[in-house]
């Protein structure tokens, strides 16, 4: 009887010590889940999810305030990855979700631009350079295609150009295997 009690108490003390030690040793700063979600989001910072950027949306998903299907630039692939990370079921895009568009880059028509700097202020990644009364231009390699600069432009001089595949970004296609319809379906899913 006493032996059992002693053993149990010793075990409790030991386990408590281990837990206490690991709590100190492996202490995690911040919320790692938010960073993990943020790493999956495409970082367009477009706000189509109704949050003011990717990080706030990630925070909202982590706290359970937002569904995982609110990011059109991430595509269904993104929803799948989030579902896998969070152990949730895949949710398709809702009817109210913004349409998915091909990845694009903004181009300023330099003849029309009046140099109002409104787009510069709107750009979430500082990918537009220019100054007041000077023509603006977009640093194409930094543009995430978020379209946030379209709205404020008073002369509608910004247009979105879909990014076309070139020889450096070209990808080998999924091989087609005629004997397996599954492979064909995969291919369709890929090209869709």
């Amino acid at each position, binding site marked *: 009887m006493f032996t059992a009690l002693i053993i149990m108490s010793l075990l409790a003390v030991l386990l408590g010590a281990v837990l206490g030690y690991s709590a100190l040793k492996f202490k995690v700063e911040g919320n790692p889940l938010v960073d993990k979600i943020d790493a999956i989001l495409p970082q367009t910072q477009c706000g189509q999810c109704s949050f003011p950027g990717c990080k706030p949306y990630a925070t909202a998903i982590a706290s359970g305030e937002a569904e995982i299907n609110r990011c059109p630039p991430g595509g269904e692939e993104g929803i799948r990855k989030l579902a896998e990370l969070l152990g949730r079921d895949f949710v398709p895009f809702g009817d109210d979700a913004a349409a998915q568009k091909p990845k694009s880059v903004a181009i300023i028509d330099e003849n029309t631009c009046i140099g109002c700097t409104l787009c510069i202020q709107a750009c979430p990644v500082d990918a537009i350079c220019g100054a007041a009364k000077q023509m603006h231009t977009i640093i194409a390699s930094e543009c995430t295609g978020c379209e946030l600069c379209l709205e404020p432009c008073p002369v509608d001089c910004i247009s979105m150009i879909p990014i076309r595949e070139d020889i450096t970004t070209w990808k*080998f296609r999924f091989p087609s295997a005629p004997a397996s319809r599954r492979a064909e379906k995969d291919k369709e899913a890929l090209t869709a």
Partner: protein
Amino acid sequence: MRQLFTFHGGVHPPANKTQSNRTPIMQAGIPEKLVVPLHQHAGNTAKPAVQIGERVLKGQLFGMPEGSVSSAVHAPTSGTVAAIDMQVVAHASGLPDLCVTLIPDGKDEWVPRKQTDYRTTPPAELRNLLRMAGVVGLGGAVFPSDVKLRPGAAKMKTLVINGAECEPYITCDDMLMRERADEIVRGAEMMRHMLEAEEVLIGIEDNKPEAIAAMQQAVQQCGFARMEVVTVPTVYPGGGAKQLIRVLTGIEVAAGVRSIDLGVQCFNVATAYSAHRAVEHGEPLLSRIVTITGNVAQPQNFEALIGTPISVLISKAGARPDTTAHIMGGPMMGIRLPSAEVSLTKACNCIIESSPALFPPPPPAMPCIRCVRCADVCPADLQPQDLYWFARSKNFGKAQEFHLFDCIECGACSYVCPSHIPLVQYYRFAKSEIWANEREKKAADIARERHEFHLLRQEREKQEKQAAKDKAAAAAKAKAEAKADIKPEARPAEPDQIDTLRAIVRETAHPEVVHSDAETKD
């Protein structure tokens, strides 16, 4: 006799080399039009160095190398630049790339050529010379040779010269060795000198006795003591750089490791030849030997100017009407060309004309039955059946874990597969998807950092505005209180925040795009 080593696997496909190696190398001459792509090498595209309408001389610079891994491109003959624009090039994608179109004037007038004595020139200068001469690996990987001649971490022991030419149908190296052994050997000696290597081993497969004899004779005549022609057994892919290094030296070069750091380097025979021409004759790389074979009347080797339309070469070899596809490279690793109108590049060692009669398409693919005939022949000791499974289910993380990037895409697995699964196509698909994912990830990381900086800047502006407001208010207050003779307090600056901003700006500097080591076959 020298001790040789083996590598795992390998196959023995029918060689089919005798069709094209019975006649000497034929000069293809100057075509009516030359289209020279500016990106013919691994690394960065060369920057155009000519104007439209400009008259150029043979050997004049078309494209200037840019960045540390790049190579020059030259005018293959004298003439007038007709266009600098996007044209469909010899690439699996069938997409256009930047090319210079030259209308030759037929005079074939050279720029002044400067001969250099490599023995009295510092290696760094020689490397720059090779770079400006556009010398790249001619085995197919077109990696700039000057980069491969930079000294590595280890003391150089062996320079391997690759004359194995293991892939069926291709005979361009065979013919080059038979006809120009002397210049190959001199090029190899120059490379040995540059690398300060102890020995040069020229590996040639035993199905090329004429080439072996010619090379042995050349080595003897030149009297290079530290050079040896080594006959290696014929097995595909014994001519892969890693496989040949293994066979000759016993060293296994793992994926992601540079062979030069293990004291060994490997160049193709044609590369050695071009390096010799570039240094000792001052001739940049303007032409190459290319095998035209398969469904043509007279399969043979041509020495053709870079930029010659493939169709011109095919018709010289006797085009046949039932040809359905043009394959660049060998039958095991080649790619289908978008059309015969694309032009010859430095990478193009062989064109195989394909017809359904010559190469009947295999029966439809069946499911994998895990028979592991592929694993038995894989020269990289991989488990191709697992990689196929992961690539097909797009489980790319797992594919990488199972060493997808050790795959050299030799095609031995597809060759033996009883289910006729296009395995290599699956691996290529998986690899390019992984590269694309990495590019996207990198772009997303940059966007995230820029956004965070953007937010920080906005916050700072807000604070500064607030500070200004406070200051104004304080000043007003001070003014009011000055009458009551109270000294105003100075506001402290915010050095902490400025430091943070600076640190972020430093971090946001973009990481350079690192090109994967594409030294599969040289």
